[in-house]
C-alpha cells in the first residue's frame, strides 16, 4: 500500500463530495445533503487515520507523490507530509465532521433555534443560499486545506493557498450575521493583498532557481538546497512572511479576523481560525525558516517583538470586547502570537511547542467557538451583556463552556498547556525579556476567559435566559470528541510530539541552530527509574 496516493485521495474525496452535495436537489430542511456531507467527512477522517497509522517517525516527507505539472517553470503536482504537515492534516480531518455536525441547522433558511428572534437580531441573519451550498463549501474547504498542508511544491502551495479563499468567502458572505458581506470582502481583500505579495516572492523563486544549476523548479526539496544570497533571500523572505503574517494573523495586520469571526457562523469561524489560519504559521516554518534560514535569523528580533506584541495586544483587546465571537477572534491573535514566538525563537522547545500549539489551539478554539455558537443561537444575541446566569438553566452548556475556556487559558491538564509551556520555555532560552512579556499573556488569558464566563454564566438568571434549553444530543456529540481529545492530549501528548519532534529536528538543522546547553552543563543521572 506504500504507493497508494493517500494524500491525493484525501484532497479529492471531500471535493468530489462537495460537488455531489451541491448537485443534490434543494428542498427546505432536507436532511440528505447534510447526511451525505457528514458521511463524506467521516470517510475522509477514517482514511486519514489509516494513512497516519502508516506514518513512520523519522522526520522525512512521507506519502509523497510527484508529477510534472507545468514543465516550463518547473511546477509540479507534488504532495507529501512530514510530522508538522501530518498533525495539521489530521486536525483538519478531525474538525470538519465536528463542524458539520455542530452547524447542522446553521444554514437553514432561518436557523431553527432562533425563528422568533432572528427578525430583529443583528447577530443571526437568514442564510443567503441553500444549506446544500453551505455543506458543499465546507467540504471543498476541507479538501483544499489538506492540499495546502500537503503541498511540497511552492507553486502548488500557492494555488491551494489562494483557492482556500473561495469557500471561505462564500461561507462568510452567505451565512452569518448582518455585517457578513462587508466582513467577507474585508477578509478577501486582506488575504488577496497578502497573496499578491507572496506571488511576487513565488515568481522571484522561479527567477532564482532558473539561474541555478538544477534549472527552474518549485519543489521545496530542491529549493531548500539553493543558496539565495543575502539580499535576495531577505526580499523573498519578506514577501512570504507578510502573506503568512496576514494569514496567521499577527499584529498589526490582524483586524480582519475579529470582524470576520463576529459575522461568520461558528462553524465557519472554526474552519477559518482553527484550520486555515494555521496555514500562516505552517508556512512560516515550511517556507520562511526552511527556505530562507539566513533571512529568518536576520528577521528574528523584529518578528519576536511583533509576536510578543500580538500576545499582549490580542489579549487586551479581548478583555475589552463585549461581542463573544469577536472576543474569541482577539484571543486567537494572542495565541498566534505565542505560536509565532515559538517558531522564531528557533530552538527545539519553541518549535515543538509551536507545532503542538497549532494543533491544540485548533481544538480549544473550535470547542470555544462551537459552544458559544450554541449559546448565541439560543438567545439571538452575541453580546456578553445580554447574558447572565446561564449556568442555572443550562449547566451542561456552562460546563462545556468552562472547560473550553480553561483550555483556551492553557490550564495544566488540558492540551494547550503543554504547548504554551514549551513555547515559554523556548522563548526564555532565547530571550528572557521576550519570555517575561509573553508570560503576562497567561494572566490576561485568565481575565478574558473568566470575565466572559462570569458575565454570561453566573449571577442571577436574566428573564430572557429563563427556560433556555441545555445542550441537545447532537450538540454534545459535536463537542464531546473535541473536549475528550483536549483532555487526552493534556496528559498524554506523546503521540503528537513523537510525530512532531523529528520534523522539528529537521527544521533545526535546516536553519542551522542548536539548542543552548544548560548553564550547569554536567548532568547527574536522573532518578533511579532510568
Amino acid at each position: 500500500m506504500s504507493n497508494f496516493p493517500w494524500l491525493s485521495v484525501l484532497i479529492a474525496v471531500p471535493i468530489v463530495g462537495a460537488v455531489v452535495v451541491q448537485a443534490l436537489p434543494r428542498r427546505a430542511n432536507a436532511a440528505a445533503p447534510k447526511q451525505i456531507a457528514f458521511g463524506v467527512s467521516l470517510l475522509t477522517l477514517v482514511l486519514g487515520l489509516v494513512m497516519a497509522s502508516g506514518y513512520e517517525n523519522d522526520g522525512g516527507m512521507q506519502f509523497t507523490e510527484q508529477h510534472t505539472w507545468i514543465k516550463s517553470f518547473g511546477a509540479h503536482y507534488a504532495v507529501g507530509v512530514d510530522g508538522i504537515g501530518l498533525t495539521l492534516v489530521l486536525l483538519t480531518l478531525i474538525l470538519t465532521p465536528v463542524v458539520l455536525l455542530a452547524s447542522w441547522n446553521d444554514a437553514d433558511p432561518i436557523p431553527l433555534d432562533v425563528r422568533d428572534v432572528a427578525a430583529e437580531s443583528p447577530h443571526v441573519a437568514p442564510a443567503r443560499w441553500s444549506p446544500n451550498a453551505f455543506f458543499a463549501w465546507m467540504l471543498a474547504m476541507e479538501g483544499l486545506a489538506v492540499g495546502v498542508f500537503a503541498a511540497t511544491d511552492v507553486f502548488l502551495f500557492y494555488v491551494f493557498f489562494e483557492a482556500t479563499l473561495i469557500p471561505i468567502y462564500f461561507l462568510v458572505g452567505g451565512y452569518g450575521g448582518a455585517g457578513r458581506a462587508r466582513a467577507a470582502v474585508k477578509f478577501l481583500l486582506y488575504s488577496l493583498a497578502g497573496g499578491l505579495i507572496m506571488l511576487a516572492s513565488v515568481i522571484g523563486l522561479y527567477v532564482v532557481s532558473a539561474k541555478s544549476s538544477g534549472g527552474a523548479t518549485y519543489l521545496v526539496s530542491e529549493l531548500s538546497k539553493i543558496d539565495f544570497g543575502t539580499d535576495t533571500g531577505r526580499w523573498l523572505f519578506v514577501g512570504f512572511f507578510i502573506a503568512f503574517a496576514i494569514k496567521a494573523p499577527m499584529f498589526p495586520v490582524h483586524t480582519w479576523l475579529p470582524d470576520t469571526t463576529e459575522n461568520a457562523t461558528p462553524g465557519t469561524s472554526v474552519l477559518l481560525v482553527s484550520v486555515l489560519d494555521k496555514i500562516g504559521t505552517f508556512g512560516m516554518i515550511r517556507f520562511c525558516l526552511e527556505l530562507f534560514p539566513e533571512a529568518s535569523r536576520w528577521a528574528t528580533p523584529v518578528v519576536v517583538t511583533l509576536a510578543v506584541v500580538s500576545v499582549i495586544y490580542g489579549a487586551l483587546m479581548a478583555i475589552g470586547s463585549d461581542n463573544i465571537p469577536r472576543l474569541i477572534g482577539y484571543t486567537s491573535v494572542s495565541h498566534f502570537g505565542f505560536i509565532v514566538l515559538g517558531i522564531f525563537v528557533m530552538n527545539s522547545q519553541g518549535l515543538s511547542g509551536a507545532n503542538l500549539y497549532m494543533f491544540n489551539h485548533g481544538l480549544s478554539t473550535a470547542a470555544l467557538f462551537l459552544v458559544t455558537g450554541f449559546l448565541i443561537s439560543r438567545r439571538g444575541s452575541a453580546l456578553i451583556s445580554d447574558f447572565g446566569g446561564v449556568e442555572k438553566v443550562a449547566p451542561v452548556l456552562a460546563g462545556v463552556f468552562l472547560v473550553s475556556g480553561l483550555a483556551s487559558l492553557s490550564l495544566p491538564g488540558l492540551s494547550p498547556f503543554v504547548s504554551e509551556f514549551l513555547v515559554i520555555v523556548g522563548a526564555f532560552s532565547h530571550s528572557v525579556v521576550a519570555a517575561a512579556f509573553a508570560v503576562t499573556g497567561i494572566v490576561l488569558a485568565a481575565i478574558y476567559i473568566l470575565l466572559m464566563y462570569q458575565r454570561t454564566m453566573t449571577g442571577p438568571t436574566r428573564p430572557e435566559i429563563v427556560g433556555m434549553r441545555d445542550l441537545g444530543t447532537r450538540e454534545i456529540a459535536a463537542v464531546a470528541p473535541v473536549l475528550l481529545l483536549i483532555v487526552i492530549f493534556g496528559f498524554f501528548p506523546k503521540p503528537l510530539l513523537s510525530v512532531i519532534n523529528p520534523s522539528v529536528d529537521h527544521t533545526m538543522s535546516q536553519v542551522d541552530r542548536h539548542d543552548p546547553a544548560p548553564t550547569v552543563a554536567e548532568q547527574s543521572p536522573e532518578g533511579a527509574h532510568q
Partner: protein
Amino acid sequence: MSLVPSSLAALHSGAPVVHAASADGVFSLLWLVVALPALGAAVLLLGGRRTDRWGHWLGVGTVAVSFLLSLVLFFALVGRDSGDRQVSQHLWTWFTAGKYTVNLDLLYDQLSAVFLLLITGVGGIIHLYSVGYMEHDERRRRFFGYLNLFVASMLTLVLAADYVGVFLGWEGVGLASYLLIGFWQYKPSAAAAAKKAFVINRVGDIGLSLGSALIFVTFGSTSFAVVSANADKASSGTLTAIGLLLLLAACGKSAQFPLQTWLLDAMEGPTPVSALIHAATMVTAGVYLIVRSNFIFSLTEDARTGVVIVGCITLLMGAIIGCAKDDIKKALAGSTMSQIGYMILAAGLGPAGYALAIFHLLTHGFFKANMFLGAGSVMHGTNDDVNMRHYGALQKAMPVTFVTFAIGYLAIIGVPPFAGFWSKDRIIETAFADNFVVGLCALVGAGITAFYMTRLMLMTFVTEQRWEPDVHPHESPRVMTIPLIALAALSALGGFLILNGWITDWLAPVVGTHEEKSLAIGALGMSLVTLVVVAIGIAIAWTFFGRRAVPREAPTQVSVFTRAARAELYGDAFNEEVIVKPGYTGIRGLSVFDGSFVDGIAEGTASAFGGMSSWFRLAQNGFVRSYALAVLSGAALVLLALLAVNFS
C-alpha cells in the same frame, strides 16, 4: 550514579539531594492515592443526576480509602531505613522536546508523606462534615465532585517529582478553588470572588512559569532530582532569581503580600471549602513549594531574605485585618493569612526553619480547619448569618461547637499544651535567633493573634445574646460534630504528643540539618515572654469586648486604624486604583487605537482607493463622442511619445 544515601549526600553538598529509589512493594500503589479521588471527581462530574443519590458517599469514600492507603504507605516508610526514605514512581513521560523531558513521576518522601496524611486526613474529615453541611443544597453531588477534584490535584501537587508536575497540581487546586469559591454562582459576589482568586493566582503563576523556564535553562531539566544534585553549581544570581520567582508563585497561592487580596473574598465559598482549601491545605502550597525547593533556597541568602520580609509583612497585615472584621469567616481568613505568614517566615529562615514551617503548617491545618468548621456549625445554627455582632451567648445553644472551637482557639493563640504553642513558639524562638527585628514581628504578631481570636471568641460564644428575632440557634447534626471533635482532638494533642521533636528529625533528610543557635534568655525564657505577650493581647480584648456591651451595628466613629483594617489595609483599593482602573482606561484607549489607527490604516487605504475611483469614473459620462476624443488623444499621446523616444 551515586549510591550514597541522601542524608549522607547532604553532608557533602550542603543541601540534601533528591535521590529516590524506585517504588516497589506497597509503594507501587502510590498512584492509587491520587487516582481514587480523581476517579471520584470524574464519576461525579460526568455522571450527572444519576449519581445524585449516593454521590456524596462516593466522594467521602474515595478520600477515606486514600487516607487509609496513605497511612499504610506512611508506616511502610517509617519501617524503612532512615537514609532510604525516598521512593519515586514513574507513571509516564509527559512530554519531550529536544533534550527537555518532563516525566509524570511521583516522589514519596518524608515531606510528601506528612502532606498526604494531612490532605487525605483533614480532607476526609471535611468531606464527612460536608455531607451534613450541604445536605439541603440541590447541587451537593457537584460539590463533592469539586472537592474530590481538589484532593486529587492537591495530592498531585505534593507528590510530583518535577516542577512542571507541581504546576499541574498547582493549577488543579487553583481550578478547584475557583469552582468552589464560586459554587453558589448565582451570587454575583461569589462569582466575582472566584474570578479574582483565579486571576491573582495566575499572577503568581508567572513566577512558577518563568521559574521553571529558568530552572530548565540552568539545569537542563526541571526534575527535583537533577536540580537538587546540581544546585550548588549554579551561580548565586541565578539561584536568587529562581528563588524570587518561586516566592512570587508562593505569594499568589498562599495569599502573601502583595498578592493577598483574594483570600478574604474567597470566603464567599461554602464553609467546608474555606476550611479545607483556604485554611488547611491549598493556601499552604506556597510554603510547601519553598520547603520543597530547600536545595535552592538554602544556597541563596538573598532570596531567603525576600521570603522572610514577605512573611513578616503578611503575618502582621493578616493579624491586623483579623482584628477589625465582623464577618466571622473573614476574621478567620485574616488569621489564616497571618498564620501562613508565620510559615513563610519560618521557611525563609533556611534549614533552621523549614521543618518548623511544616510543623506549624500541620498544626495550623488542624486547628484552623477545626475553627472554620466550627464557624460553619455556628452559621448552620443561625440561618447562615456570618456577622459576629449578631451572635453572642452561643455557648449554651451549641455546647459541642463551643468546646471544640475553644480548643482551636487555645491552640492558635499558643497556650500550652495545645498544638499551636509548640509550633509557633519555636518559630518565634528561631526568628529571634536569626534577627531581632524579625523576631519582634513574630512576637507582636502573637500578641495581636491573641487579641483578635479572643475578640472572636467573646463576640460569638460569650457576651449577651444579640440574635436576629427569627434565629433559633441549635447544635449541628452528628455528622458535623464528629468531625469537629476529631479535629479538636488533633488541635489539642497533635502538637506535643505527635509532632514536637519528632517532626524535625523526620524531615531532616529532606530539608537538611543545622546548628541550633541558642538565645541569650534561653528557650524557656522566650516561651515565657511569648506567653506574657499573649496574655496582654487577651487582656486588651477582654477590656474592649468582654466587659463592655457589643453593639449590634458596627460603630462608624472609629479611629483611622480601625477603618484601614476594615478596608483590609487598602489592598483592594490599591489594586483597583493602580491596576484595574488604569487598565480599563488603557484597554478602552487601545480599542480606539485598534479601530481607528490599526484598522484605520487598512480601511483608510481601501476607502482612499474607493474615493479615487469614484472621482475617476466621472470620465465615463456616456457620450460616445467624448470617448472617441479620448481614444484619439490617447493615440496622439502614444504617437508623440514614440516620436519623442525615437528622435531624442
